[in-house]
């Protein structure tokens, strides 16, 4: 019991984002691009990690999404990830999402708003010069 939860760190590639899930800090970050042909394979370990984290989460869980591109296959997996976090929200942790987008990138801003409309957790839309 009370095993220390391992962090999840994945280096980004040409088709996949850098993943930094830190159990101790309660921070989950996706950064870069997410365009694998089949995203299920890539996102499965992330879902598994969140499941394990949900057993003893930090009081506040901060999710930072800093993506420059994602494909439609990933868009579904990202929604599933948010739904999973929505399920944790209020159960020992308050989940909040910071959705980053580059200035003038309306498409990425709209994508964040669309998730915000579907998912019942607080979203901060954060405009930055460069991701």
């Amino acid at each position: 019991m009370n095993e220390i939860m391992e962090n999840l760190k994945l280096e980004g590639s040409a088709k996949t984002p850098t993943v930094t899930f830190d159990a101790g800090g309660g921070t989950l970050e996706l950064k870069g691009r997410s365009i694998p042909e089949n995203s299920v394979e890539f996102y499965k370990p992330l879902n598994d990690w969140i499941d394990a984290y949900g057993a003893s989460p930090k009081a506040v869980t901060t999710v930072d999404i800093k993506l420059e591109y994602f494909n439609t296959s990933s868009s579904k997996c990202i929604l599933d990830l948010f739904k999973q976090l929505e399920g944790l929200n209020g159960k020992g942790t308050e989940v909040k999402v910071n959705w980053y987008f580059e200035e003038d990138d309306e498409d990425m801003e709209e994508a964040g708003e669309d998730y915000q409309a579907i998912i019942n957790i607080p979203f901060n839309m954060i405009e930055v010069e460069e991701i």
Partner: protein
Amino acid sequence: MALSNIYELYQTMERDNTMLSFKGVVTSDLLTSVLQIMESKLDHVEKSPKTKKKVYNVLVECLQNLYHHNEEIGQSEGLDFLFSKSALLMISKNSDHYEVKTGNYIAKHKSIELKQKLDDINALDKDGLRDLYKSVLNDGELSEKGTAGLGMIDIARKSGNKLEYDFMPVDDNYDFFCLNVKID
């Protein structure tokens, strides 16, 4: 092919401002290479980060459509295996817009389904497309191949134009699906 055709082919591509043209089987590696080449080309020729992203996004979805389609047709009977898996991709830059053209074989019963989908998409405006995307995203399931049924909707959203398409009859079982995506 006569040697003079090579020059003609070159001239045609020059006239159409072709940035990249590929005919063959779209594999995962090919897809990666094309995206890398196009990303660096776009970095050189396109100043607007917004347009660059839209073109790149459309390319990703078009290439992944061709890639997943190949997996599908590979298992079907009829057309010669390699011939049927082969597809066409062309990217050109005109003075005020980009064009991404794709061509691939498709089983006739799938043509009907796809035509309906494209007509539905073309009937929608910007907000309508956004609503459709949201509802498919929220209600749809990923296929085993990881496709979400969102590709064409996303292409239409990023394009900002109607999707131009045609199905050319090939034989009793197959059509050749032609798609032209204009990105402003």
